[in-house]
């Protein structure tokens, strides 16, 4: 199986710092979750991942945006870009860029779950037939994408692969497995449009080239960030590089 060839050091400048893994569950009721999937160029499939992760075939990227009206840090919106991959046998999304519009939330998401969160503007505008996501950092627009023509799905029809963040931890750089549950009460599939995306400004690896949109979904429900259970050495395959947070 192919695995990544990027140096871990390439990802560390933007990585969050975690003092420990003693994170409690956090429920985010009334959340809206927009997920957009894109195929990316084969040329970047290994160069955009560290050696501990395997690329997908075809290589792909997911943009996920959350609007959370209630949280311990108040209302916030988040947008993250994840390179889809495998950690061992498991489907995962490796977060390479994350923008949050609430400074307290950004700090907490970084310190407790390892999100490489930067403060910026995230606007998730959900309309009747057009959902529009705009992300800006330091006044510059890094993502502008639309998803159109929603059709209803069953509440279990949208699959969310588990999130991986890469953080500075007391054990050194670690991929942090962020388990999120979404108890969904409404789901729709939409048609994803081609994004206006500044790859590097958003935090994605420079070798990633977006080819075409695959799908989009919009889900609503209670999103819960679960306590951390596993971390992995980023430069070692998961079969030998996985550690329990309680070790």
């Amino acid at each position: 199986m192919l695995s990544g060839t990027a140096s871990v050091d390439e990802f560390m400048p933007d990585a969050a710092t975690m003092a420990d893994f003693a994170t409690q569950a956090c429920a985010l009721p009334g959340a809206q979750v927009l997920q957009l999937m894109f195929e990316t160029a084969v040329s970047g499939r290994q160069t955009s991942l560290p050696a501990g992760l395997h690329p997908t075939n075809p290589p792909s990227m997911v943009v996920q945006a959350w609007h959370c009206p209630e949280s311990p840090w108040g209302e916030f919106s988040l947008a993250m870009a994840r390179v889809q991959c495998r950690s061992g046998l498991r489907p995962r999304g490796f977060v390479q860029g994350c923008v949050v519009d609430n400074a307290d939330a950004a700090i907490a998401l970084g310190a407790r779950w390892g999100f490489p969160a930067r403060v910026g503007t995230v606007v998730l505008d959900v309309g009747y037939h057009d959902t529009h996501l705009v992300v800006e950092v330091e006044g510059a627009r890094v993502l502008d994408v639309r998803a159109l023509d929603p059709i209803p799905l069953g509440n279990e029809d949208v699959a969310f692969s588990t999130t991986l963040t890469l953080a500075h931890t007391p054990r050194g750089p670690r991929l942090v497995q962020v388990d999120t549950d979404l108890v969904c009460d409404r789901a729709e599939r939409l048609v994803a449009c081609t994004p206006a995306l500044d790859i590097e400004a958003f935090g994605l690896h420079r070798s990633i080239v977006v080819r075409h949109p695959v799908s989009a979904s919009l889900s609503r429900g209670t999103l819960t960030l679960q306590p951390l259970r596993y971390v992995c050495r980023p430069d070692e395959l998961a079969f030998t590089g996985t550690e329990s947070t309680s070790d």
Partner: protein
Amino acid sequence: MPARGGLVTLRVVKFGIFFEMSTPRPFTPEVEGAVLHNALAQARLADELGFDWVWAVEHHFLEEYSHCSAPEVVLAAVATQTERIRIGHGAVVCVPEMNHPVRVAERCATLDLLSHGRLEVGTARSSTWTELGGFGVDPDQTKKTWDEFVHVLPKLWADGATSYDGHSFSMPERNVLPKPLQKPHPPMWVTVTSPGTELDAADRGLGCLGVAAAGYAEQERRTQEYFRRIEQCDPVSSVVTKEVTTLNFLYCHEDAAVAAKTGMGMVGTFGLANSHLMWTREAYPTRAYQSLGNLAPKTDRSATGSPGDRFGIPEGICVGDPDIIVAALKRWEALGLTGINFLLNCVETIPQEQVLESMRLFAREVMPHFRDSSNEAGA
């Protein structure tokens, strides 16, 4: 079929070999050619040893996992190099972007003629986004097009000049040629990956070609339900194929420890390759693909387990010495299965000579335990 002691016997449970043509990197013509020629040698040996089927899948773009994109070509070679084993086209992907139904009918009829009436036709709709996306297929449509194909193919084989005006294709009056040797047409099957597809098979009078690893309890439930439903089926033609098979791995060695070490390496490699496929559900939210295929862990929140987990060994795996394999197969047989198909290798992790020796040992020491004694001469 030949058996020990020269008796002519029939088995209740049949055995097949199943080709994915998984291929190690680098994908050079030498490597890809060796995989194909090794498979042909396995098919010839299976024919000699008394295996009942040789199946070849249809997959596209699945690096390492399966390079079997032109199974009808592989099976044409098998047909001309064997004499009695049944030829399993398992399965033709029944979406028009990949295979026009007329071309499917033509190719299958030709294979049936070349094999002197030994063809079995599997049908499927593909499970991965890698394939569906590669051909621009709308995942919401594949169940419909599969259903249309399985209803129209018998007409194309059995009737003379035929016209058709349907959902996924239409054609003016034409005579699809050649016609198959088996009349009215070869037996038809459905590959069953997702739970519930066995009912689609039963309702249409089609064989249930299991390609996902179900445990004993789940397989028993599926098998019982299939046989119950097929009694009330509305068959797609006058041919009802009342069969349920499952997919297994085979590595047989006199020394159980050697078998486990070698065979489980193959099983683990297959599990890893399989889990790295991009299943449709992962890429494209739809009601039409409710589960991930084959052996992959779920993407959903129910399976956010440790990434350090190794591939879980499925129940009843046929890796071991002959006694272990006989015990496993007896248990499968007791569930009412009519056949078991075996993967023999994965990305060539097992040297070819060891694969062939495993097949010989299986035929010598395991197959005789599954003879139907009521059919033995003098019984």
